[in-house]
């Protein structure tokens, strides 16, 4: 009887150890999944902020370019007018 119980007991103990091993692996998989989700969310929010700033910068640059080109045009027409007068 004691001999019969030993292999069964051994099997059950081995099964418990296997289940603990599987539990460690699955909890690690869950941690990796949580990390990936939070990383994705945080990256997206930072990229969205960056996108907003880039858009604002692009609009400002466009406006400044228009102003500078208008000023250049004005100066050129002024210099042409002064040449004509001379």
């Amino acid at each position, binding site marked *: 009887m004691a001999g019969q119980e030993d292999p069964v007991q051994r*099997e*059950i103990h*081995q*099964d418990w150890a*296997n*289940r603990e091993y*599987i539990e460690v*692996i*699955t909890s690690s*998989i869950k941690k*990796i*999944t949580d990390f*990936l989700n939070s*990383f*994705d969310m945080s*990256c*997206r929010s930072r*990229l969205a902020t*960056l*996108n907003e700033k*880039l*858009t604002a*910068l*692009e*609009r400002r*640059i*466009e*406006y*400044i*370019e*228009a*102003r*500078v*080109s*208008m*000023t*250049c045009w*004005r*100066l050129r*027409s*002024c*210099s042409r*007018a002064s040449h004509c007068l001379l």
Partner: protein
Amino acid sequence: MPLVKRSIEPRHLCRGALPHGVTSELECVTNSTLAAIIKQLGGLSRHAEDIFGELFNEANSFYLRMSSLQERVDQLAVKVTQLDSTVEEVSLQDINMRKAFKSSTIQDQQVVSRTSVPNPVVEMYRRCDKPPPLNILSPYRDDKKDALKFYTDSSYFFNLWKEKMLQATEDKRKEKRRQKVSGCPAHPDRSHSRQAPPRSPLSISEQQRQVDDPGREVKKVRKARNRRQEWNVLAYDKEFRPDARLTPSPYHGTSPEGSLSPDSRYAANMPPE
């Protein structure tokens, strides 16, 4: 209900029927559980690669935008150094003659469309059941419409919106035509706000009639329209510009657009030298 974008399969590790003729059941369950874990790890690595790929694409697009922005800033810096502040500026006439600045930034359109669907959602869509093949019944319809569209039509809402927009445009066009035919009423604000000569030919000919000798025969001749008068008025700065509000004109109140023609108004309100 939130849509799950990425799901890892298999969800349940230990559920499943054991095969027949297995001597050690506990070992069998352990082995099948470990095999399911390996499948889950494979799915997880695929999803991780997809996540990083999307983030990389977005960050790359920002890098390209930033580098083009940097080039524009450099060019602007070079242009600004070439400007000479000692040269006299041109008069205010040029500011009014140039077109106003209009931004050419393209706004995002069709953000939620078939082309912008992420890859995991496309795969999920492909795994779904297809609609029944009702399109094979289309040749038997009398109205020659697609039979599947009566069951499911993905472009229904877009077509509805398009029809509404077209209808609204058509209504506006009809309204404008109706106003033109009836003759739009004169605006009372014109005499107080703008100094530029009114645009309608009717008012210009009316002004011409009032300025001319009332005993003469009034000819309904439309004055040739040019912008010379407007430029002459604008050539003066704000302080010297003839203003109908401040200097009461003898013909005030006779016509809503301003009683005098711009030429005579200018002559009447010129400050004495």
